[in-house]
């Protein structure tokens, strides 16, 4: 199943040797996700706490009448959230008929990454963490961590 879901992304590697991603900041690190998974980017809304949910669930929001869960990647990845609320956004990901929002400190840009610039995650991370990371992209002097959303969402909270 996993492989099939990744196919569009893999295809875009092969076909044009390029991957289009949305880059965002979590704490002091830069992350990126395949743009195919991004439904929309919105400003912070009131988040309602959901008691008894997982430790990384921030709560739920109302997006035009739809209830969307918001997860906290800061706590999941053990990162310090930025103080400044001004640049914070919610990226709503759509994956396998499921919508999930993630709070990010800043959405930087949409970039194309060449395939040869992506390094396998296993070289940098231990085997466990490497699971939800597709690879590390080097762009000039920046390092973008490419997330494997399917793995992250499958793992649960």
């Amino acid at each position, binding site marked *: 199943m996993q492989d099939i879901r990744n196919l569009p992304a893999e295809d875009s590697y092969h076909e044009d040797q390029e991957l289009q991603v949305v880059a965002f900041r979590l704490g002091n690190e830069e992350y990126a996700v395949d743009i195919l998974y991004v439904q929309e980017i919105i400003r912070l809304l009131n988040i309602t*706490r959901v008691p008894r949910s997982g430790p990384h669930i921030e709560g739920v929001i109302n997006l035009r009448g739809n209830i*969307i869960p918001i997860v906290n990647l800061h706590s999941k990845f053990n990162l310090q959230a930025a103080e400044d609320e001004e640049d914070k956004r919610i990226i709503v990901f759509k994956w396998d008929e499921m919508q999930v929002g993630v709070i990010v400190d800043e959405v930087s840009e949409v970039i194309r990454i060449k395939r040869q610039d992506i390094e396998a995650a296993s070289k940098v991370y231990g085997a466990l963490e490497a699971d939800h990371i597709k690879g590390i992209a080097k762009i000039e002097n920046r390092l973008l961590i490419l997330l494997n959303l399917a793995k992250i969402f499958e793992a649960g909270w």
Partner: protein
Amino acid sequence: MSMDMTQYLDVFLEESKEHLSNLNQQLLTLEKNPGNQAALNEIFRAIHTLKGMSSTMGYEDLADLTHHMEDVLSDLKEDILQADSQVVDLLFQCLDRVQMTIEQIERTGTAGFNNQDLIKALGNVKADIFTTQDQGEVIAGADTIQIASQSLHTISQSFSFDLNEYDLTVLQEAASRGYQIIYLRIAVDPASLMKSVRAFMVFKVLEEDCEVLKSNPPVPDLEDGKFDDTFDIIIVTKQPANIIIDRLEHISEIRVDTYETVDISQLAVQQSTNTASQTTQETKEPSDIKGNQKIKQTVRVDIDRLDSLMNLVGELVMHKGRLEEIGSSRRIVELNETIEQIDRISSDLQSVVMKVRMVPIEQVFNRFPRMVRDLAKELNKEIDFQIEGKETELDRTVIDEIGDPLIHLLRNAVDHGIESPAVRAQMGKPRIGTIVLRARHEGNNVLIEVEDDGSGIDFERVKQKAVDKGLVSSKEAEEMPNEKALELLFSPGFSTSDNVTDISGRGVGLDVAKNKIEALNGEIHVDSKLGQGTKFKIKLPLTLAIIQALMVSVRDEIYAIPLSSVDETTMLSPEDIKLIQGQEVMVLRGTVLPLYRLDSLLEVPGEKQSDEMYVVVVSKGDKQIGLVVDGLIGQQEIVIKSLGKFLAGIPGIAGAIVAGDGNVRLILDIATLF
């Protein structure tokens, strides 16, 4: 299957299922009353449509099977064959196969069943008659010849065209100019994939030197392939008939079934008798079969669209709330008048949308007669299964969920409830047992009852079984009143049947049914008299989408509690709270009520600001519990939304709502909160 057919796949599946359900029903009617022509016609019609649909969609095996079923059915119609239990059973088997095939198509997109066994069986049924008929023919040889000549004579009556004045004048005109009028019955190979194309080619060939005056079915239907394997046309031509027929038969998959040259002088007479017989037929048909279907005009709508419509209406209602807030603070008369209008319209809209989502419970009930029949046959029991109030309407969400629990109850009734005919006769009961499935509205609820006149529940055996299973001690059992014993039936792993059968008795069933019904905010009760029968009563809310709720506040958070689980509310002062072994309780009108604080149950952050406290008395099963909250906000009609797959199954949380200010509030699920 060709690409352009895929878009019709949904329609095909949907309609096939409808036909199947209808077929099952009609076949049951036929089984009860083998002479029922209306049922037979309906079956024939449905099978015929199924055949046409599946062949259009390219499911040849399905088309083939239904084609052979049709053969047998037409023998039934013509009284050559009797609808005895052997034939009906075979037809049921065929329906099952059709259903399997359709389910397979739904899952995989392809059919691919080998139906040769059934086709052979269908052939055998037919063959049986022919052998018996042959014998008959030897004896009544002279008669058959007469019949044959008669059928030749009446061929023109088999061509029943609806000719109007204009057509007649045209024909007369043509005849006077020396044209011939020919009736043709064109047969298209049943296996043809492109019936419409073949029909088109027929017209193309005829175009050369003939004129097609009329066709039956009409041309547009022919173009859409909406015809059986044959269609009739009237042509006027100067060519001799045999040349035209020869030319037509050169088209592949086309055969001229019968033809007849018409004498125009006879036409008028014949026409008048024809129309006479036809009008009687026509007036009969709509009232007979199609009458019920024509009254209601319906549109098929994807349920997702209804859900999003519901969502939008919810949004509208929410923004109306905002408008009302603005209106009350600004105090502009015109604005407030407009808001009132919007208020009225939006509440109308909401109720209309709710009604649209309601479907008759028939949808679920319809599959039961067949199930009960099959079970009864398997267990050698005779059962009269009656359904009452199948037009009772329920919200879709409830309909989808209620099927399984009802199946459990019905299976129980057939398996454990109704005794075998011999036992019934011994007890002085009618041999045939009765099971009644009843539905009706009662206020904001729907009541569903499953009643049988079987053996009833033996309380002593239930108690004994419970003791054996270690559910209660023997002392408890002894003191237990009968009503309490009935509740034991719903405990997990309980079954009283001595012999485990395929049908029930595995001890899963009643507890599962009960859980399901309670998950739907419903209740189930059982009533039984030993030797006289059992009655299960299910009470369900009309809809799961909109409920009345009590909004309560805890610190800065607001929660909704379904009003169906709220018994009462009361103020609470700190000195009312007493402790019993560490458990907080209060005394409410003489009874001790355990108290749970919502803030600690839900780990609500923040400090309590005021001393004010309220108790919401909720019932969970037969127990009452006091839920301590900071404040009561009020009663509200709420539109329930699901938290989605990602957050599904959190104990104590039933769903969410979008409040008037646009924020999300959570709905508490009392059954799983503690």
